[in-house]
């Protein structure tokens, strides 16, 4: 395994499509199948040339794909909020795209707004082919129901900005503008994200330099907010190994301008696998050595009947990073069809900063 197992995090999340729609049995079968041959789906091979705006859009020949935005926001009084916007696509079958209801794509959206006291979220599902959900490369628009992420012309193809991000659910809503000066970051080898163990890989690029401004609404109160945001774009056909029970993933916006992504994969045998990327202020993404990363749970929260480690000590020896991460709201639980914890965090220590933490696979309390 190498650092590019970042795919696993979102890959598992994309599996939500089957978790949500198919139930646990389908998940087991689905992932047993997904772990093996991706028969009929397009293969991920090195040396792909990324073309924008084409690659903003969907790649339906690949099995799974997602558009994933998280933002750490503050209002004028300095009160902190977090925002999540996610669109997943999964193909039920390979082959040419079929028309109308016969279309084999299934879409899922997750959206959330978090404050220190409140966490509101929603999910929605759609089938492709009829227009309820989809992604158009140019002029860029990704949508499911009334949730959308769309270009605000003129769009810079290099920075994938500016964008407008909207979603609303029961008790929450947001309408944000995402701006970025720096270009997109291609992860791995020019966007080819390898998984060394089984030769699995994904195409993966990010925009960690977004600045979000706009309004959020939480329980009927609307406030103006701004702050850093992070976009992940990834697609693949072979996402996940069968022996993983869950993961702990975090992204950090450090005050010095560096961006960090780290995760710990928990394996069925009790072992952990660490990986991560350090994106320097020069915009270069460098994979971190597995043995250089340490992630230690410090405190747990019981939420939705599960015991989830919401306080962490995080260290990357090679970069001199040693911080304690604390959640803005320890109860940022996404009680969606496939439940997981996802919410904004604050870090203090060798570096200060904010970020997002995502944890899956924690079952019963204790």
């Amino acid at each position: 395994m190498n650092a590019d197992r970042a795919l696993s995090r979102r890959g598992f999340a994309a599996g939500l499509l089957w978790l949500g729609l198919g139930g646990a049995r389908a998940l087991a079968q689905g992932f047993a199948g997904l772990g093996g041959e991706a028969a009929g789906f397009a293969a991920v091979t090195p040396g792909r040339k990324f073309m924008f705006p084409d690659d903003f859009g969907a790649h339906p020949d690949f099995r799974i794909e997602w558009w994933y935005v998280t933002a750490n926001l503050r209002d004028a009084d300095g009160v902190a909020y977090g925002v999540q916007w996610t669109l997943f696509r999964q193909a039920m079958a390979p082959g040419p795209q079929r028309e109308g209801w016969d279309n084999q794509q299934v879409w899922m959206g997750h959206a959330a707004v978090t404050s220190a006291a409140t966490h509101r979220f929603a999910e929605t599902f759609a089938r492709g082919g009829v227009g309820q959900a989809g992604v158009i490369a140019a002029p860029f628009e990704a949508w499911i129901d009334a949730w959308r992420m769309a270009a605000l012309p003129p769009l810079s193809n290099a920075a994938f900005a500016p964008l407008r991000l909207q979603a609303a659910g029961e008790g929450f809503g947001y309408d944000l503008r995402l701006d970025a000066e720096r270009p997109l970051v291609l992860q791995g080898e020019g966007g080819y994200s390898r998984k060394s163990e089984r030769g699995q890989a994904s195409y993966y690029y990010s925009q960690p330099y977004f600045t979000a401004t706009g309004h959020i609404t939480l329980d009927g109160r609307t406030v103006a907010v701004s702050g850093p945001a992070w976009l992940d774009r990834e697609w693949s056909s072979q996402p996940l190994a069968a022996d993983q029970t869950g993961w702990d993933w975090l992204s950090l916006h450090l005050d010095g301008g560096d961006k960090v992504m780290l995760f710990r994969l928990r394996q069925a045998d009790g072992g952990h696998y660490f990986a991560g990327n350090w994106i320097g202020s020069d915009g270069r993404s460098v994979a971190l050595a597995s043995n250089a990363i340490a992630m230690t749970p410090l405190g747990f929260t019981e939420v939705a009947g599960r015991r989830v480690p919401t306080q962490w000590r995080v260290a990357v020896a090679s970069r001199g990073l040693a911080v304690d991460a604390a959640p803005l709201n320890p109860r940022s639980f996404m009680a969606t069809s496939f439940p997981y914890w996802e919410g904004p965090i604050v870090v203090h220590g060798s570096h200060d900063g904010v970020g997002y933490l995502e944890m899956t696979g924690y079952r019963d309390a204790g």
Partner: protein
Amino acid sequence: MRRALWVLAVLLSHWRRHPLQLATLLVGLIAATALWSGVQALNQQARLSYDRAAALFGGARTAMLIDPAHATFTQAAFVALRRAGWPVSPVLEGRVEVGGRSLRLIGVEPVTLPPETAAGPAVGRDDLHAFVAPPGRTLAAPETLRDLGLTAGATPRIDQSAELPPLQPQPHLAPGVLVVDIGVAQRVLGKPGQVSRLLVGNTTRSARELPESVAGTRLRWVAPDSETDLARLTDSFHLNLTAFGLLSFLVGLFIVNSAIGLAFEQRRSTLRTLRACGVSARLLNVVVVIELVSIALVGGLVGLVCGYVIAAALLPDVAASLRGLYGARLPGTLSLRPQWWFAGIAMSVLGALAAAGASLIRMARLPLLAAAQPDAWRRAQRRWLLRQGALAAVMLIAAVGVLIFGDSLLAGFAVLAALLLAAALALPVALDGALQLAARGARGALPAWFWADSRQQLPGLSLALMALLLALAVNVGVGTMVRSFSVTFARWLDGRLAADIYVSAANDTQAIEIRRWLAARTDIDAVLPGARTEIRIGGAPVEITGVADHATYRDNWPLLRATADGWDRLHQGDAAFVSEQLSRRLHLDVGDRLRISGGWSVDVVGVYADYGNPKGQIAVGVDALSRHFPETPQTRFGLRVAPEHLAGVMAALREAFHLDARQLADQATVKAESKRIFNRTFAVTAALNTFTLGVAGVALLTSLLTLSGSRLPQLAPLWAIGLTRRRLAAIELMKTMVVAFVTALLALPLGLLVAWCLIAVVNVKAFGWRLPFQVFPAQLLELLGIAMLAALLATLWPVFKLARMQPATLIRIFANER
């Protein structure tokens, strides 16, 4: 504890000596529990299947959006609303023919289907992939598969052109329904990109926030019903059954009451002896209650089994009526919930305790050493009669009050219940009055004694006589109502089914071919095109039927009232007739204006009878209907054919177009079928009616048995002064027959009153139509005869016993003065 067991053993020994009494008690309990729980089982079964039908993708439980002007609309409206944040899910519905059977095909979109529309049981989430991905699945109830003679995995053909996805049994589905993915439904029904309705999931938004027009379609919000269409339509039917069940239960309790009264009477000395032996009153009471509850449990259990048998026997009739009347499909087998068993047992035990209440209280107060009390019955009886009379008056006033102020089906039944109760309570008063009157005319000691003794017997007999009165009155009432309906219905059928042959083509193309074929023939007198579509007015479904401009209709259509130029206006297109049901529901009458759809309003120029149709109906000119609803299939028509050509035309049509019995029928067949449905509807009523009368007869018998024992002290002196036992028996028989006759006579006017209530109040509320009230004297005489026969049968045995009684027994009365 030991002592209690001993006391119990002593008490139980009574039943060993009087097995018949035990049998009577058990029969009462069993009859009460069986009829009540049988009816409950039927109702429960029916409701369960309505829920299944309703749970089907927002039958009526979910708010939905429809296009009032068209049967279907573009799915672009679905996408537009989703993208505006509305949690809607599309449904396309139509009918398909599989193996000659017409089935409801429902296309759903499982991914957006709101979970609260109870889709869960219908499309299991585990099966979603198989359901959506080609070839997909056709979900159907196991009954439907059985009906079609197909097994899981089969891919039935429909209309020679399309094939359905593999069948998969789904126990939660209603029979007669096929569920497929919406994409499959659009293909199979030939409606690409079209939906019938959008289900609205849980949302805080309301109808007011809906845009005026969505994707070029003006949608209307249909608020969810708390009840399903079927539940509402069939409510009256089930209320009918429940009312009968309750009546039978009460009559059964009369038996229990008299059996327990008898046992108490006979065990009085035993109880006194037990008390004298040192058994405390409390222990005695507890043991008696335990004994009663045990017997009630046994009776209740047997009653439940009998109830199950009754329900199973009646189910085919009930199912047929519900299907014929309301199109509601019931599965052919009973499935009972545990609650049903518990409720049945509880009813039995509580009923037994209630029926035994009076005896228990009397026993609890039993003085240890009561002297033989010279009967001060006269004064006591006068008080009792006064109380009964006062209660009856109160009930009567209540009945009149509800009749005036009530305006619902329940109120209708309340009137009936109050009326029956008032009559039952007034019965002893009336009988007492009648007997008193007769006594005045009596000459001689024996006749005077005869009448006086009859009066004295009243309190003991009154419960049984009340049961007889109620059973008879309800029989008269229901009988009169059914006969009135039957006569009216037959006349109405003649009017409505005026054409000689009815044809329903498979599609418009075939309809055109058939009409061309008909036009070329010389043996057809007229072709009467008809068309039918359905809209919703005020949230409820309303049929619009197109009527051809032909003398057949003008001469026969069963108009209740209309303007003189009604038919001419109808065919001009700006006027309509409405069915009686719709006229009552919407408070429409001749001269009013009715908006049918967006741009089409009509004057109401007539009201017609439309019996048996649970939906409201509007009749318009067939041309106007096709003009305003162009997509209405033009596939139905009636033919006028001279009788001698009838068979030939039928055969030729069947031959030329391969029409089956569903598509081609002659008038006689349709009429026979309608009458058959009608008769089955009332078969259940008739069966319950007979049961009730039978139970009333048993009640009378047990009462007389009770009396014959306790009245020996009164008869013994007469025997002692020289009246023969035979003579005494004849007098006893005479007395019972006289009071039974007076009761039956009283039951007749009461029954007619019940019939009037059923016709003028209950029917109108339940079905929306009012029948002409007719009296059938022969039927009344017949019932009177049956009642007297029942009374005679019930009296014979006690009287026979008296006639054959050993003189020693009579002598012992004097020795054993209690």
